[in-house]
């Protein structure tokens, strides 16, 4: 225990006294700040000037213009200004394309004469890559066409206006502790933030542990150390030391966020979603932390074993990608997990120990998880962590003294079985 503490202390100080730690500590709060404030400060909506060629009845064009130029509801919505263009599409086509290329307009919309019979509206622009623009144009055109159809069916304009009145959804989660506020956006953002944090930390510190073990192997320090301290204890001390640096960094980031939230001038400028995602249950935070910490150490042990087994830096770089894969899988299923937090994908990924450190926090952030599932996943993760750390110690003991060609999986298995 005493030796482990000495190793812990050395590795902690060695990793804290680096430029990478200082840069990471400063840079990530800036990123968090950007994630919290930039959406409200900048928004992602932009302004577009579009020409409109209306071949349909004039009231359709007027209704379209009204619908598309309505004041944006959020910072994410685009703003449009419409320039009416007289004449048919075919006669104006070349001129309008020229105006786009000259930068006079961003694009133009053509409402064909038979739009009421189901024809498509046309949109031409230098870039048509934004799904949001297409969606907004489609909604405005649909509103205009449906208004015209209703009007032609004899429905009064006042009735049509009432018909189009917007209905919003007020979403509230029902938990054992009662009703909890939180929109779909807040759940998504929170799950994404947690997954992102674990991913970033594993990449940063996993690679750091790998480098550190590999340095000890190539510099032959390990042989001296292992003549004093059992390999397993040394490796545990090292992983805990580097892990403590990661936890310290997260604590600093959390403190920065807390300070930012404490400033009324700043918190008042945050979006509703941002504020709601920060009101999390203490129990969930504890479970999140547990999965986060165990997951971090599980990957740290795997990276340490890899560092001891490889024989060159190139080999380490090419193989470490394999260790990132299990973390990436839950990110690939992010949509499925958020859409149905109790679904098969979410359930399986949150039980498998190599994916649960990311998948379970994502589930916890979006909906309550049954206690039995939480316990099973937690125990499976803890047991895997213990087994991997033990195996890593065995691999480390033999790996640090091995040179030449990279060991095969069968050889690694023999190393683990060797006393």
């Amino acid at each position, binding site marked *: 225990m005493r030796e482990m503490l*000495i190793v812990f202390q*050395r590795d902690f100080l060695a990793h804290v006294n680096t430029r990478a730690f200082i840069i990471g500590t400063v840079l990530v709060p800036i990123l968090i700040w950007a994630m919290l404030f930039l959406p409200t400060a900048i928004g992602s909506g932009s302004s577009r000037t579009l020409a409109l060629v209306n071949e349909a009845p004039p009231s359709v064009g007027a209704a379209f213009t009204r619908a598309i130029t309505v004041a944006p509801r959020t910072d994410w919505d685009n703003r449009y200004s419409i320039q009416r263009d007289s004449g048919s599409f075919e006669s104006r086509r070349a001129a309008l394309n020229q105006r786009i290329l000259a930068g006079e307009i961003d694009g133009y919309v053509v409402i064909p004469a038979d739009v009421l019979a189901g024809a498509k509206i046309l949109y031409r622009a230098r870039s048509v890559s934004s799904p949001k623009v297409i969606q907004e144009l489609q909604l405005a055109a649909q509103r205009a066409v449906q208004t015209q159809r209703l009007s032609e069916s004899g429905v009064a304009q006042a009735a049509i206006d009432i018909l189009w009145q917007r209905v919003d959804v007020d979403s509230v989660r029902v938990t054992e502790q009662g009703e909890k506020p939180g929109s779909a956006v807040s759940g998504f953002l929170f799950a994404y933030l947690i997954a992102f944090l674990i991913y970033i930390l594993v990449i940063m510190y996993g690679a750091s542990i790998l480098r550190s073990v590999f340095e*000890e192997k190539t*510099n*032959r320090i390990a042989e*001296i150390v292992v*003549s*004093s301290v059992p390999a397993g204890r040394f490796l545990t001390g090292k992983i805990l030391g580097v892990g403590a640096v990661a936890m310290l960094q997260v604590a600093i980031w959390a403190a920065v966020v807390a300070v930012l939230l404490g400033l009324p001038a700043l918190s008042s400028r945050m979006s509703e979603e941002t504020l709601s995602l920060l009101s999390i249950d203490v129990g969930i935070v504890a479970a999140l932390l547990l999965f986060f910490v165990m997951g971090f150490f599980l990957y740290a042990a795997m990276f340490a074993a890899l560092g001891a087994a490889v024989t060159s830096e190139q080999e380490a770089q090419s193989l470490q990608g394999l260790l990132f894969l299990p973390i990436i899988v839950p990110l690939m299923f992010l949509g499925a997990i958020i859409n149905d937090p109790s679904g098969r994908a979410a359930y399986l990924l949150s039980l498998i120990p190599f994916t649960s450190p990311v998948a379970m926090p994502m589930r916890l952030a979006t909906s309550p998880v049954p206690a039995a599932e939480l316990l099973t996943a937690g125990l499976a993760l803890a047991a895997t962590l213990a087994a991997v750390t033990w195996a890593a110690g065995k691999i480390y003991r033999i790996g640090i*003294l091995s040179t030449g060609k990279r060991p095969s999986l069968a050889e690694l298995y023999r190393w683990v079985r060797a006393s």
Partner: protein
Amino acid sequence: MQHALVLQGIRKQYHDHVAVNELDLAVPTGVIYGILGPNGAGKTTTLRMALNIIACDRGETRVLGANPAQHREVLRRVGYLPEERGLYRKMTVIDVIVYFARLKGVAPAAARAEADRWIERMGLGDWRRSRVETLSKGMQQKVQFIATVSHQPDLLVLDEPTSGLDPVNQEVLRETMLDARRQGRTVILSTHNMQQAEQLCDAVCIIAGGAKLLDGTLDEIRRAHSDHRFAVTFEAPSEAADTMLRTRRGPFVSAVRKPDGWEFELAPNATVHEALATLNALEVGIARFARVQPSLHEIFIRRVGRSGAAVRRPEQLHA
């Protein structure tokens, strides 16, 4: 007799290569003991197994009276300098020495005081707070050596300790080993340098092909390998004696002229008495007659073979 290290039938096999095969070794306490052998003989593997850095496939090891696999605390009393050395390059000289001493159970303050004493002794005072990576290779060797000895171990295991050291520091190392022996500590020295082993070691063991060829005190080994070679110095020049030796007549099978007389080898069945009688018959006065003992280098070459391949003839000269 107290032993600092006892190995009994230890064996290590890597795939189909047997690195160490059924090796027995007993290193008495308070001596400088040399482990000699050609490259790839299994010296480093033997030392690693002795210190439980790697596990034996078979056999038992006892370090300072305890099995290091079961009683790891005994390794705190051991200082190990491996052949391939390395230090934490980003750490300062003082910090790296204190770190290794603390891993051996020394309290921080005592570790620091002892480290300072050694830093001064090895002439590294100006580099005390420098990072290891800024030092020359030779200076790094010195730091490594200090890290091995600063916790005052009862057993020092040094694998090729002088490689990379300048003559001045080789002398410091030699003094350190002699000091350790004077204080009743034991030094195990793995080396290729026969001259160094001959000057320093009380006893040696020669290993080749993973097996022990011989071990014992230097005197015992030399006596056992002296064969039938003798040196003779005459009181006055004797034509008759010179002719007899040059023409290899009588019991003499070979003879070489030396500045102070002759060195010759007797036939296997001839006795010393017979040789003396033959020379006396020539009425020549004998000023000196002595058995010639071979150097360690000669014994090594003879037993290991010039190619480095082992000529195995296990012997156990001391228990």
